[in-house]
């Protein structure tokens, strides 16, 4: 077994993990691990475990490893070695303390960003291996409190922020009313069966960032999109259950989302600027349900804006003046290949785009994704210290003149906000939608 990581010096107290651990026995641990490995994994896990030659080429792909002065405990292979390999090797006979450490590694020291998979000579998807660990952690009841609470919110409300049934349409109507002060005949059409597009968002938008819905409504209105938003559950495309290892709940959330689109008879689902939600509807959740591909065309906001601008459906009145730098969110770039479309949008709406390096599919993760930011305050500094390399990358862009950081993903936004603030980088952070709303031609 590997030695404890240096960061064990600051032992985090998390009620979800600690109470969960206090209820474990070694028999229960063994039973759960073997049950998951025997009945929920197969050739994929076996191939990965038996193929890895421990070369360590994945190490330099990981922002945690780089940010911790190349501490091998933080290398992807090191994290695998400290978790699933040991579980497999010992046939599940590991201690509660081992599980505690595995929970912290899997949930707070890996963003499932898949950057390392690109550097593995065999293409081993280490994010999958860590997801298996998270599944075991879920089955053992040791998921970090804040993430588990988010999963509970999903289970009750089908959204991640405990937004109640009435609060959702009420918020849309409030935003519609606000926007009508600017464009009197603007509508946010609720439950419009047969619209071309169902626009779905994640719950932080109605909860804290309702202006994003306002901005989206203005963009839809000006572009003449035949769109709708559901007034029932199914409006939230997010899915923290995907990251907490609660696959059954993930499937329930995705079914609700897709069936809402089916009920509304739309042709496409256009999603707001969120990365993990894209992964959940485009890759993970649909496949758990039995769909090899999503039953509806999924259009992420980056692609949507790209198409609207390219087709001339929205026109830019005056390009955004402050120089921007563009962060490529893992789930829509490595996971969706939208990096060039993002650049098309950036150059179309901004006077100056300064590339950060590395970029595109080689970009560093924000360190918030993969559910890590949802583990909440106990692990905030783990996230920030674990991404010093991101701060250095952003400093590089800032040095070249960037004043604004565009991050077309909610979790990236929040995570980068913490990085920018802690390392005093001095960049404003915006969504594409913020800038498009500001620079587009709107009715007088």
């Amino acid at each position, binding site marked *: 077994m590997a030695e404890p990581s240096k960061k064990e010096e600051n032992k985090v107290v998390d009620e979800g993990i600690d*109470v969960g651990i206090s209820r474990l026995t070694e028999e229960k641990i063994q039973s759960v691990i073997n049950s998951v490995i025997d009945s929920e994994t197969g050739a994929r896990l076996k191939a990965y475990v038996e193929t890895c030659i421990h070369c360590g080429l994945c190490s330099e792909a990981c922002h945690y490893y780089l940010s911790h002065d190349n501490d091998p405990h933080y290398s992807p292979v090191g994290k695998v070695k400290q978790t699933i390999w040991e579980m497999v090797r010992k046939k599940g006979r590991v201690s509660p303390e081992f599980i505690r450490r595995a929970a912290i590694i899997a949930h707070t020291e890996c963003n499932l960003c898949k950057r390392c998979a690109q550097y593995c000579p065999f293409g081993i998807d280490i994010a999958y291996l860590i997801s298996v660990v998270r599944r075991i952690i879920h089955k053992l009841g040791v998921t970090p409190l804040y993430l588990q609470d988010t999963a509970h919110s999903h289970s009750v409300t089908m959204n991640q922020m405990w937004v109640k049934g009435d609060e959702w349409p009420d918020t849309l109507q409030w935003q519609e009313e606000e926007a009508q002060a600017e464009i*009197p*005949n603007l509508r946010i059409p609720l439950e419009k069966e047969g619209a071309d597009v169902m626009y779905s968002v994640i719950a932080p938008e109605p909860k804290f960032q309702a202006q994003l819905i306002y901005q989206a409504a203005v963009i839809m209105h000006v572009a003449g999109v035949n769109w709708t938003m559901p007034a029932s559950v199914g409006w939230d495309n997010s899915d923290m259950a995907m990251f907490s290892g609660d696959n059954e709940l993930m499937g329930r959330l995705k079914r609700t989302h897709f069936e809402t689109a089916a009920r509304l008879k739309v042709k496409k689902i256009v999603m707001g600027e969120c990365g993990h939600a894209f992964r959940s509807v485009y890759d993970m959740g649909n496949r758990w349900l039995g769909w090899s591909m999503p039953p509806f065309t999924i259009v992420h906001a980056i692609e949507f804006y790209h198409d609207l601008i390219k087709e001339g459906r929205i026109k830019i009145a005056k390009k955004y003046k402050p120089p921007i730098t563009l962060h490529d969110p893992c789930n829509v770039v490595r996971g969706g290949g939208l990096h060039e479309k993002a650049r098309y949008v950036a150059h179309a709406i901004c006077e100056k785009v300064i590339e950060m390096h590395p970029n595109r599919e080689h970009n560093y993760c924000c360190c918030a994704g993969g559910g890590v930011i949802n583990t909440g305050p106990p692990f905030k500094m783990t996230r920030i210290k674990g991404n010093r390399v991101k701060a250095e990358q952003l400093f590089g862009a800032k040095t070249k003149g960037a004043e604004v950081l565009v991050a077309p993903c909610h979790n990236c936004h929040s995570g980068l906000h913490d990085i920018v603030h802690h390392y005093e980088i001095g960049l404003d952070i915006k969504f594409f939608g913020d800038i498009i709303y500001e620079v587009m031609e709107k009715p007088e």
Partner: protein
Amino acid sequence: MVDSRSWDWETGEKNVSLDSWKKEYRWVEEPYASPDGEKIAAIVNVDEGEFTVCVNGKVWGETVFDKIWHLRFSPDGRLTALVSEMGEWTMAVNGEAWENKFGYIWEPRFSIDGTAIAAAVQQDMRYGMVLNGKPWEQTFANMTYFALSPDGRHTAGAVQVEDVDSGEIHKFQKGSFTAALDGNPWDMRFVNVWNLAISTDGEHLAAEVRLNLYDYTIAVDGVPWESRYATVWEPLFNPVTGTVVAPVREKGTWALAENGKILWDRRFVQIWHQMFSPDGSRLAAIVAPKYGRWTVAVDGVPWPATFATLVTDATFSPDGRRIAALAKDGETFRVVVDGNPWTDAWDMAWKPVFSPDGKDVAAKVEKKGRYTYTVNNRVWSRSCDIAWDPVFSPDGTHLMLRTVEAGNYVRRIVPVSDIVG
């Protein structure tokens, strides 16, 4: 069921001009046609923050509301909408607002014959159902799923009966939800309650429940099935025998269970939207017989034809002998009847409709923004700007087709033979 015998099945065509509406109002929202086809209605904006409903060119009533949404005709032809006045919300029926007002109202439901109208309501951050204007006496801290019985006499909700603050994960996992029928909650608490069903006689309530983070089952009248599953989908009462069937997941595959016992021999990659024939003798469901392929299974036997993207809107014929559904491959839909896909592919299709004798099938379909109808694999010669579902006459010889064409709402009675030849 709604009795359509009194509807006008003689007049070939009736028209209502919609063009003048746009001149009269600041904006006109999407129109809705009545089940009998005699009325066309839309929410219209009169002035800033002033809304009414225009029905066949006339305003709906004397009251102008601050906001109106979810305009729909009930199956018995009454025009309903959710309306706001002076910061309070309620349901308006044919222009008359219910006497009881609420902090908010949403998720309206109609009984099959349309005589009952229900909705979820919130007042002072307490939640319940309202049925025909009368709210539950007991209200709850939250309510998340809703049901109206087929006969319209009962309502149900998944309700929160223990306060749990955000972050109290261990208290939450002890169970704070249950189901309530007509406002009366079950005694047993669950971690989660989803997707409620009320029996045909209105006496029984079933729901999906989660007993802890890992064990799911179906509870009927507050009593969980003895069997536990990895997860479950929505329960359904047999309309005749009253037994409950639900899809259940075990060891990575799905089966159908009846009262806690596995019903079909065959397991599937996915099973959902199970449905009984009207006489309760046949059971069908949308299934994935293998990963990434979808079809309909009838009494456990899947149709040979499978589809890649989606199967939806399955429905039994009134006599229970036939089944129609929609299948999507790539981006296009086809109507499929008894496993046989029709020739034409559409950008969108709507739930197929059987004639009363089950011999004919019709569906509203759309391609490139133009709507038409397909009947028995033949396509109507016209295309329209808007269309509503086709309605068969009681004797099955005619179809009522409700459309919007060139600014006119048109109600047509068309012989089925005109389309199918």
